[in-house]
């Protein structure tokens, strides 16, 4: 609208176009917003980094805290567990949501609002409430069902090496993000026509899902996976309350005795997550460029 107004004004003016002021002001705003945002993120990050590389004893800088990460007590187990939890959460959430969203889009469009509201619930219900409920059930069920497979299952879910109960909770927590990411992809593509075209050409439903729907939703599946994965890597409350050691709870545990190491790990994980995000978008862009050239 502003551009149009300027264009119209420019067309009417006799003198050489000189509408510099509004342009510069808009550009100025843009820069200001970027600077504020940048500072908001950069200051804590820079402070953290400074904290981890400053050598307190000798003065100057040291990489000692970063070098110490791999060998730190408990790091490998906790980090590995979080990666596994992340992968399982992503897999389960996609397995649950992709068919659901496709089904809603193609067959049950009237359920769309219901599904949308349902997936919003985890944002409304605080994680603390969710986890207290889960803990009560975990405490109550084995006793109540003592000696039955239900009790066995309850124990299996709480195996400290790989607590599946966390996967289940994380899937719920990730639903809003996964749903929204996938929904954006579904809305951007004419899935109905594409699936009907495939059906018409003789494709079975599983075939349609694998050969047509997934490739079309590729970008949004990647986005959904990234969001869910990042959520798991950073989740503290649930893991701590249920008493499992994951990457975030490990960081908190060692922060008392080794503050610089714990911050170094945080900075590093931030960089890694960020790198992963760049990698995903780069991969996606390369695919697109390949298709265009």
């Amino acid at each position, binding site marked *: 609208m502003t551009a149009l107004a300027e264009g119209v004004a420019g067309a009417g003016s006799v003198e050489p176009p000189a509408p510099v002021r509004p342009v510069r002001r808009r550009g100025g705003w843009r820069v200001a917003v970027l600077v504020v945002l940048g500072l908001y993120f950069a200051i804590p990050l820079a402070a953290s980094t400074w904290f981890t590389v400053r050598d307190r004893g000798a003065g100057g800088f040291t990489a000692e805290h970063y070098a110490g990460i791999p060998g730190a007590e408990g790091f490998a187990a906790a980090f590995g567990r979080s990666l596994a939890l992340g992968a399982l959460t992503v897999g389960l959430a996609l397995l649950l949501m992709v068919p659901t969203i496709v089904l809603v889009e193609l067959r049950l469009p009237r359920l769309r609002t219901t599904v949308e509201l349902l997936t919003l619930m985890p944002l409304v219900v605080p994680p603390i409430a969710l986890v207290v409920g889960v803990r009560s059930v975990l405490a109550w069920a084995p006793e109540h069902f003592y000696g039955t497979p239900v009790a066995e299952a309850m124990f299996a879910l709480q195996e400290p090496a790989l607590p599946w109960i966390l996967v289940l909770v994380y899937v719920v927590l990730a639903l809003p993000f996964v749903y929204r990411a996938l929904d954006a992809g579904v809305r951007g*593509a*004419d899935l109905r*026509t*594409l699936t*009907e*075209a*495939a*059906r*018409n*050409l*003789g*494709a*079975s439903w599983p*075939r349609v899902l694998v*050969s*047509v729907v997934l*490739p*079309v939703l*590729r970008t949004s599946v990647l986005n959904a996976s990234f969001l869910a994965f990042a959520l798991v890597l950073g989740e503290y409350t649930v893991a701590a309350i249920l008493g499992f050691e994951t990457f975030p709870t490990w960081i908190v545990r060692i922060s008392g005795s080794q503050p610089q190491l714990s911050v170094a790990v945080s900075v590093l994980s931030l960089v890694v997550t960020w790198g992963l995000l760049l990698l995903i978008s780069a991969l996606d862009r390369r695919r697109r460029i390949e*298709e*265009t050239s």
Partner: protein
Amino acid sequence: MTTVPTTTSHGPTGAAAADLRSRPGTPVRLEGLTRRYGPVVALDGLDLEIAGGELLALLGPSGCGKTTALRAIAGFDRPDSGRVLLDDRDITGVPASKRDMGMVFQAYSLFPNLTVAENVAFGLRVRRRARSERAGRAAELLELVGLADRGKRYPHQLSGGQQQRVALARALAVAPQVLLLDEPLSALDAQVRVQLREEIRRIQLELGITTVFVTHDQAEALSVADRVGVMRAGRLEQVASPDELYERPATAFVAEFVGTMNRVPAILTGGAVELLGTRRPVTGATPAGGPVVALVRPESLVVAADPAGRGRVVTRTFSGASTRVLVALPDGVEVRIDVASADSQLLTPGAPVGVTPADRPVLVAPAEPA
């Protein structure tokens, strides 16, 4: 319509050639198809017989149930009642993926992640044909639709018209028994539309494939179809050849939907109609006597410059050999009349003219309470 005698049908034609040149077209029959969406009756007991190898156009205004009928044939939608028969076999319950029908959609429907050639070969890949056969077949079909050099492109690199050509090639690649086209040209601009519809007809004749072509454009339907079925509110009003539909529309709805039609008030008495001061015999369904509306084609009216005439020329539109003249008659009636351009010199806007109906029977409809 044409049935090949069984004694000669075991021809020596090779598999590949027989594949593309198709078997004698398969007939399709719809019996009492009904489909409701809540209170909306999309199909209201539709009966239709499509002969083998015929191109039948389903013509009708938006929302009259054309797509619903086509989707019932394709198997995307289950009718509430009625049957779909393919070659006298009831296929009403057969899923879409097993119907052996090719469909081209109104919306662009190419798979965006596959190349043009891969799109065309999709149906063959699903059928687990060998890679070499798929490639050969895709090339053959792209040649058929005039896009032999675009196989390696991606859909978004093609124009709308090219995408629909590829969609046609893809639908035909599996040598389906029936071709279904749901307004395949409606998203294209006028010139491409005319060109592509002629090409669809050429290919359809070449393959001899039974085809249902859905459109809301009467010019499109009349120009490509063997027969045209005019639909209205989920039912067929008339199924006839294009010229019969134009010359002898069975109902006022058909008459007005197909071609241009003038509505002129007239008086009906004793099987003849008093129209523009002249008596003409009546054809088709006849309402009760009294005031009626006569339906008259632009070429069935005669206009002549006449200082005493009661009409006035409003506009004159030149279109090559013929010129269309819009004439205002008394009582606010306007009529469109086609005259040979050579005879239209005196028919300038404002000129007084006389209008008479040509000497042929007239179709009438009940007068509207105006």
